[in-house]
């Protein structure tokens, strides 16, 4: 099953099995905005539960928070991460803080689903992922599914969580095709990073789209005789470094690829946590962060093409790191 279809399967399971689940956001009735991930859901479950909205990100996100405070499990959908920034107050000041501000008695079971949709010469305001922004905020859980299975399962887990969850999916993954088991209720609090591929020479850490890059790179590197371990982060807030640390204690080498700016990014957090956990001599070679240069996304095709890391970039960096013993 493809990643995009797996998201739809998750939505279908949630809407069918739980009357409290509703979906609200811009473009939900239009594949132009959300791909096939919500195809015809409003026809099956009704436009009062799958709600396409006015162009009001802030009010619609606030409405999701309000419905969540009154017994529902809304999934607020933003067709671009960039657009969700208009709703920052409701996500960061409100949803993330209500439980704490009211002494642990006001959980907000809302999902903020944001879609990364880069490439296609869309430029600076249609391309961002901003993972580490949301991971910085206590009170938000942040999930970044890479595989089709997780696209489905983490959507279900996010929606069943009593906490506000940022769920970020990536349209560059929508055609990733893998076997997917049927949806079931999952406790998000029990979910964290997973080893997707076992290896002994180097630990490659990714999230969302970059995990796919790393898996492709690991396959190529295997043909060159290198054994790469790939860790998919899956959940970046609350952040659990133990799986990565355990891997690095074996490989002594660490590369983190994130589809985002590296400054103050997820990679910085991963590397710091590993060193904090394993000590200053945990690595045999300097760690490497692969991500975007510190510039907004360009539009012009050749510039855009250079802007995003490729499988070959990962392979090159790994080979350089392997020169050091």
């Amino acid at each position, binding site marked *: 099953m493809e990643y995009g279809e797996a998201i739809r399967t998750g939505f279908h399971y949630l809407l069918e*099995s*739980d*009357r*409290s*689940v*509703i979906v*609200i956001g811009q473009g939900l009735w239009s594949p132009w905005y959300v791909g096939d991930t919500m195809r015809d859901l409003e026809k099956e479950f009704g436009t*009062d*539960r799958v*709600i396409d*909205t*006015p162009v*009001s990100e*802030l*009010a*619609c*996100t*606030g*409405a*999701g*928070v*309000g*419905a*969540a*405070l*009154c*017994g*529902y*499990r*809304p999934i607020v959908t933003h067709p671009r991460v960039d657009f969700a920034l208009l709703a920052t*107050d*409701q996500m960061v*000041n*409100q949803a993330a803080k*209500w*439980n*704490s*501000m*009211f*002494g*642990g*008695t*006001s*959980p907000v079971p809302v999902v903020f689903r944001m879609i990364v949709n880069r490439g296609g010469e869309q430029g600076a305001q249609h391309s961002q992922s901003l993972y580490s922004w949301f991971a910085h905020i*206590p*009170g938000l*859980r942040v999930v970044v599914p890479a595989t089709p299975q997780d696209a489905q399962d983490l959507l279900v887990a996010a929606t*069943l*969580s*009593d*906490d506000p969850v940022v769920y970020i999916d990536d349209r560059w993954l929508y055609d990733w095709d893998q076997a997917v088991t049927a949806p079931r*209720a999952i*406790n*998000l*609090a029990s979910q964290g990073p997973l080893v997707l591929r076992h290896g002994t020479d180097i630990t490659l850490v990714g999230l969302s789209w970059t995990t796919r890059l790393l898996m492709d790179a690991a396959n190529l590197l295997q043909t060159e005789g290198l054994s790469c371990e790939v860790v998919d982060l899956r959940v970046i807030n*609350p952040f659990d470094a133990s799986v990565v640390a355990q891997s690095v204690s074996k490989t002594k080498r660490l590369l983190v690829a994130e589809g985002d700016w590296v400054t103050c990014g997820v990679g910085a957090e991963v590397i710091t946590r590993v060193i904090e956990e394993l000590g200053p001599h945990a690595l045999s070679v300097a760690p490497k962060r692969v991500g975007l240069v510190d510039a907004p996304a360009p539009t012009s095709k050749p510039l855009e093409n250079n802007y995003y890391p490729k499988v070959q970039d990962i392979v090159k960096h790994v080979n350089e790191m392997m020169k050091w013993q």
Partner: protein
Amino acid sequence: MRDPEYEGLGTLRSPEEHRTPVVTTGFDEQLLLRWHRAMVLIRRAEEVIAEMIESGEVRCPCHLGIGQEAVAVGVASELTSSDRCFGAHRSHSHYLALGAPVEGLLAEVLGRSTGCSGGFGGSMHLKAPEFGLVGTVPIVGATIPIAVGAALALKLDGGNFVAVSFLGDGATEEGVFHESLNLAASMRLPVLFVIENNLYASHLHIDYRQPGDALVRYADAHHVVRELVDGNNVVEVAQATKRLLATVRSERRPAVLEAVTYRWRGHVGHREDVDVGVERRDNLPSWKQRDPIARLEQGMLSLNPQIENQLAKNRSEVDLEIIEALSRARAAPYPNESAVIASVYSTSVNSKGSV
């Protein structure tokens, strides 16, 4: 109903007008006494909080609504505990008017674990869901769309309960107010927006902030029914609320109530507004002549001079209630340190649905 398109607030913004006793003819005396007691409770509780701010015992930012009591009491009179209300930074009155215990408020501003928010909220984050108050927060305008979402939930629930968003005139300058009116109107959601127009956003008069002073005009732009009333007349507020809520409950559509009032203290803290400009300093003594409590008392006394005994009883009962509540609040412990981390995330994963 006035037509603000032509008149604006007119005399409603003048402290020299609307000073006459509240006309209470035809109203049940027990109902009037309940309104009086609720207003006196709000007034006295906030005066006690003001004293504790001045003495340094209360340190959290407190935005007092002394002078505005009739708005909260008049609106709350028409609500049930299953309606869902939301407030902002100046919401002691909403909390108390809905019937929540004063001890929970006093303990909360004192940072005690017995506070209505477990000592984690202070004055600006109050809740009393069993009385209908889901929450109040100090980001201006933040609870407006949240109330719209509550209305969405109530609509999906069926039944005829409503959401209420208490907001100030300053919040109508936030974009989200307009987004929320549009969303509620286009989705036909049962929410009452109560705009307490006290003419000031913090220190700045509405004449410096908006081209018109009557905020019901925004309702017209979104095809939302609305009323404009003297916010210092509890009878007028309650009657307008009753009319609007009849529409909201039966037709499942939003409404706007604008109540014109005035606060007697500064934007934040215990001081009167002697420090925020000549205009306000000059107007405050006049506005105190438009006191919502005194006007209600005058109206009741004009019909029944013997009612003074009951009014006095209200005052003394309220004073005793506050003294006892304050004593218990002061004796309560501070929240446990471990709760700082423990309250960030919920611990359970229990779907309210059928999973």
